């Protein structure tokens, strides 16, 4: 698959069809990749594909707003939802992007690997299992054991035209019922309000307001972020639990109808705040109240720019 990808990109560059290509390259550490920007044919050899490609490269499409040319990128099915949303939000023109779809069969959670196999050097996708290499030995592992949480509920856009595909683009299905997708939300909701408050206060206490969650998010593209605004000044740089609460709640609110659960925010948080447990609540409310899912169809109208008179019958 890597060879096919490299060849596609090489041709695109050779033909001058794109200015650069955004893909995954090997990282310095084992079990890591890093985003890369390929501008010349000679560089395509750097492109890789593995179960350690969590980055939603659509995040880097915002850089093309200043230019006029075309940009290519490789996306997993989940990432394609971001492209749908960016087109929907008039942030990019679909014609300016060359999308190469890669049939991801699950991404690996680094923490889970490190816990189960200290010193693992490689993990390969072996169809129904992952093959973990530790030293000389290979271990075959059920995918569930190492999978990123979000991958259990893989969703692709309902209709999306990839310019190239490296195989069949279909959601990666495990035997997990979709009702379980919001199980952790339901669990939180079943707790008494004081416990919820204590839980979230403790999480926000730990936050160092590094803004990694905001900066990795494909959907955070305001030219002047609300948190950078000086007039009004919503937040100073003070990091009390309640200041941090303001930050997280406002950002979660801004994700209404836009969060595609790529899970990147939670992955990048150095303080391991369970951000998906916040954003999936927003995602679920929007689904339950307004029957809306982000990133599925370009024609869908975002829930907050419209209304139905029937809304008044909705109760929560």
């Amino acid at each position, binding site marked *: 698959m890597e060879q096919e990808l490299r060849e596609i990109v090489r041709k695109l560059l050779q033909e001058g069809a794109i200015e650069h290509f955004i893909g995954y390259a090997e990282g310095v550490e084992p079990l890591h990749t890093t985003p890369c920007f390929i501008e010349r044919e000679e560089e395509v050899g750097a492109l890789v594909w593995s179960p350690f490609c969590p980055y939603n490269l659509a995040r880097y499409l915002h850089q093309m707003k200043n230019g006029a040319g075309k940009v290519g990128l490789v996306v997993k099915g989940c990432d394609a939802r971001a492209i749908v949303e960016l087109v929907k939000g008039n942030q990019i023109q679909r014609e300016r992007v060359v999308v190469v779809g890669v049939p991801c069969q699950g991404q690996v959670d680094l923490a889970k690997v490190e816990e189960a196999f200290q010193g693992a050097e490689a993990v390969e996708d072996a169809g129904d299992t992952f093959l973990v290499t530790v030293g000389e030995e290979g271990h075959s592992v059920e995918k569930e054991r190492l999978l990123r949480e979000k991958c259990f509920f893989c969703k692709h856009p309902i209709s999306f035209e990839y310019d190239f595909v490296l195989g069949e683009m279909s959601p990666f299905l495990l035997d997990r019922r979709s009702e379980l997708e919001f199980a952790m939300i339901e669990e939180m909701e079943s707790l008494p*309000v004081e416990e919820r408050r204590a839980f979230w206060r403790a999480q926000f206490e730990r936050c160092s307001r590094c803004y990694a969650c905001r900066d990795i998010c494909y959907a955070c593209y305001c030219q002047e972020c*609300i948190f950078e605004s000086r007039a009004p000044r919503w937040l100073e740089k003070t990091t*009390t639990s309640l200041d941090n609460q*303001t930050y997280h709640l*406002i950002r979660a609110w801004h994700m209404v109808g836009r969060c595609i659960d790529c899970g990147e925010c939670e992955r990048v948080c150095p303080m391991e705040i369970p951000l998906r447990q916040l954003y999936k*609540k927003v995602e679920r409310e929007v689904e339950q109240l307004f029957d809306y899912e982000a990133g599925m169809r370009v024609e869908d109208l975002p829930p907050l720019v419209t209304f139905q008179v029937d809304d008044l019958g909705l109760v929560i």
Partner: protein
Amino acid sequence: MALDDKPTILIFACNWCSYAGADLAGVSRLEMPPNCRVVRVMCSARVRPEFVIAALSRGLDGVVILGCHPGDCHYSEGNYYTWRRALLLKGFLEYVGIEPGRFQLRWISASEGARFAQTITEITDTIKALGPNGRRRPQEG
């Protein structure tokens, strides 16, 4: 505004209906608890959810949005947008441990002075019962 233990409640009232209703309540000398601070907005849809989030996170004890009855919005449909936002916001605030009742949305028309007074009284009682929302001076951390 001194920081003390009595609940402080922020009310956004739309100019055409609910603020007029509030005015009527005042002119009619109806008795109401003094804990509310009213901010007039042209339409309830002017209220950004960020106002509610920031207010409750900074420790105000309650935030209320008052708008026109559905169908009566001076701008035809503003209050429908408000309703959608309020639905989402309500569930979301409660999820992170802000007690139900601290954020409310009510419809009040220009002629409903008594209803305004009654609503304010009822909401103030609810929020008093919930206790202070952990308001702290910033320098106390």
